[in-house]
């Protein structure tokens, strides 16, 4: 589904990603872990098409297409979804308006009929239950005045409505209490299928107790320095990132 080869990217002349290789197949969940500033969000944003980041080398193929050639909105229409580490507040734009416009633009792109208001509302209601978000959020402005946890749940809610093929969740677990974490994880698990894939960017092994990854990668200083199965997350939790930083470990699990 997604193949990243030797990806170098930066901003304003600073190279942040220094040669990333990653392959994600349909049906898989990949966790990307790494210390602050290692480039996790940069990778996520580059994949989503954030302007300002410059790719200097490498390629990204997504379902046979050159992802880097696609406009941000077309990536989304092709099924890429980014749950933001810091969801943006947009005063004056209601959640419903955002979702309805987005959903219909995506459907139009795929040659599907637009949803009428009734169909849209019933879809929305169903998905809200999934993340236990109150209906009053629908008419509120996007993320405006939401608590940290509500913002994260709203991201998962949007994901549930838009039903992406490749979901990239950037620290969706950070700052969540355990109940909220379970809700978010439950939402993600329910959406898992053999046809879609998930990249979980996280700091903490905790999330991986609820969403079990197929692979864990450690990103450090713009490179994936270690990849393995879910046990790698436990090892990181135990030994800390110094373990990878010092480069002491030899064991690299291939997949």
């Amino acid at each position, binding site marked *: 589904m997604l193949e990243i080869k030797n990806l170098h990217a930066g901003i304003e002349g600073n190279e942040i990603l220094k040669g990333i290789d990653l392959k994600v197949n349909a049906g898989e969940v990949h966790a990307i872990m790494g210390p602050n500033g290692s480039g996790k969000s940069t990778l996520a944003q580059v994949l989503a*098409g954030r302007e300002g980041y410059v790719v200097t080398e490498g390629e990204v193929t997504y379902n046979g297409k050159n992802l880097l050639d696609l406009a941000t909105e077309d990536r989304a229409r092709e099924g890429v979804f980014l749950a933001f580490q810091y969801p943006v507040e947009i005063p*004056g734009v209601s959640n419903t308006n955002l979702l309805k416009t987005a959903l219909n633009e995506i459907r139009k792109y795929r040659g599907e009929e637009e949803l009428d208001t009734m169909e849209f509302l019933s879809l929305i209601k169903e998905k809200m239950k999934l993340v236990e978000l109150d209906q009053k959020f629908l008419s509120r402005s996007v993320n405006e005045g939401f608590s940290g946890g509500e913002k994260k749940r709203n991201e998962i809610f949007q994901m549930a409505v838009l039903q992406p093929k490749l979901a990239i969740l950037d620290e969706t677990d950070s700052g969540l209490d355990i109940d909220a974490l379970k809700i978010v994880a439950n939402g993600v698990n329910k959406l898992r299928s053999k046809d879609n894939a998930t990249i979980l960017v996280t700091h903490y092994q905790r999330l991986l107790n609820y969403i079990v990854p197929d692979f864990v990668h450690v990103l450090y200083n713009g490179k994936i320095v270690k990849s393995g199965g879910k046990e790698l997350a436990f090892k990181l939790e135990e030994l800390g990132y110094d373990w990878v930083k010092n480069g002491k470990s030899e064991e690299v699990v291939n997949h």
Partner: protein
Amino acid sequence: MDKTIDIKDWYILNFGEFEKKLNGGKESSIHQKRKDALSNFSRLEFPTIKDEEWKYTSIAPLLKYNFVPSYEKKIVSEELIKSLLFDEMEHSLIIFINGRYSAENSLLLNLPKGVIVGSIADEIKKKNEVLLKHFGKYADHQNHIFTALSTAYTEDGAFIYVPTGKIVEEPIHIIFITDSGNEKILTQPRNLFVAEKNSQVTIIEHYVGNEGEIYFTNSVTEIVAEENAVVDHIKLQEESKKAFHIARMEVDQERSSNFSSHLISTGADLTRNDSNARFNNEGGECTLNGLYIIDGTQLFDAHTLMDHAKPHCNSHEHYKGILDDKSRGVFNGKIIVRQDAQKTNAFQENNSILLSDEALVNTKPQLEIFADDVKCSHGATIGQMDDEAKFYLKSRGIGEEASKGILLHAFASDVITSIKIESVRNYIEKIITEKFNQ
């Protein structure tokens, strides 16, 4: 300099011609006002950027043309008029074409007894007492050259009179259409709206012209809201991008009256709007809101004056601008709180979005406070479109243009939503949508 004198002479010379065409309108006392105004006009000078009030707005481009009043009767198509109406709304309609009332296009709904809606020219002929009492009382022509010009050339415009206790349920929609063709037409709508004690009315002034045509609209609107009257005023300015639009609104508010103004504008080549309201007695409420959307080399200048002459009054002002290309915006919001005016609340806010590096806004609050027990605040922001928000929308599959449109709608939304009539809000939303999807 010489050019300016030419133009002044031009308007003075044309006055004789204008006077000749005033059949029947010459006898009333209004004509003395015209002549006084003409002599003021010849005494006054057109402002230059050396005048503090015109610092950022040069009217030199306006003075390049010899505009003339139109004496010919023009007819406009039904389709054009239809396209200017609000959907699903019953409203009285009065139409002016090139400054002149067009009875055959106008449609007055059943109005409460005693309410007058129509042409000020007719009322001048009838020597309407309300008109004679109020006309020219609020928009002085001693010191203001454009008002002097308007007053000298007083011919037609809208007159609305709502007597004590009458409620006009349906909004009154006044459309001023300029069909200039190759002529450089000068229209000077001269409006007077009087709402007596305990009355209520909603009035929409709507200015339109053919795109690309060069003409000059110089309008003066005087509004009186007597005790406890509620007057909602909306002005839609959809002039040609080559036109000149100079407008002045003077509002006189008596005890416990409630006035609101919404100015929605897509500009002209050069626009200057003076919106002035004065609390003449206690307990008044006044809202002055505005939204303008300009591009190219358009210049839009809004000057407001909120005169708190009496205690216990509240005023709210919120102006917003969206500027693209090399357009320029000016906002000057003056609030005077006079010595007597204790317990005043006056709020003012001006926000602008610049869509290009070359667009420019000059914003200036001007607070003159002589009372000590007042709450006054003002704020101004000038910014770009929020790129993060745009990326967020695009990352959800919404296209570049649509994302821009959504964000600009959102920016404009608080001014639009404070308009009470839904179909007018929809009309404005449509203007914005068309503007950003072109």
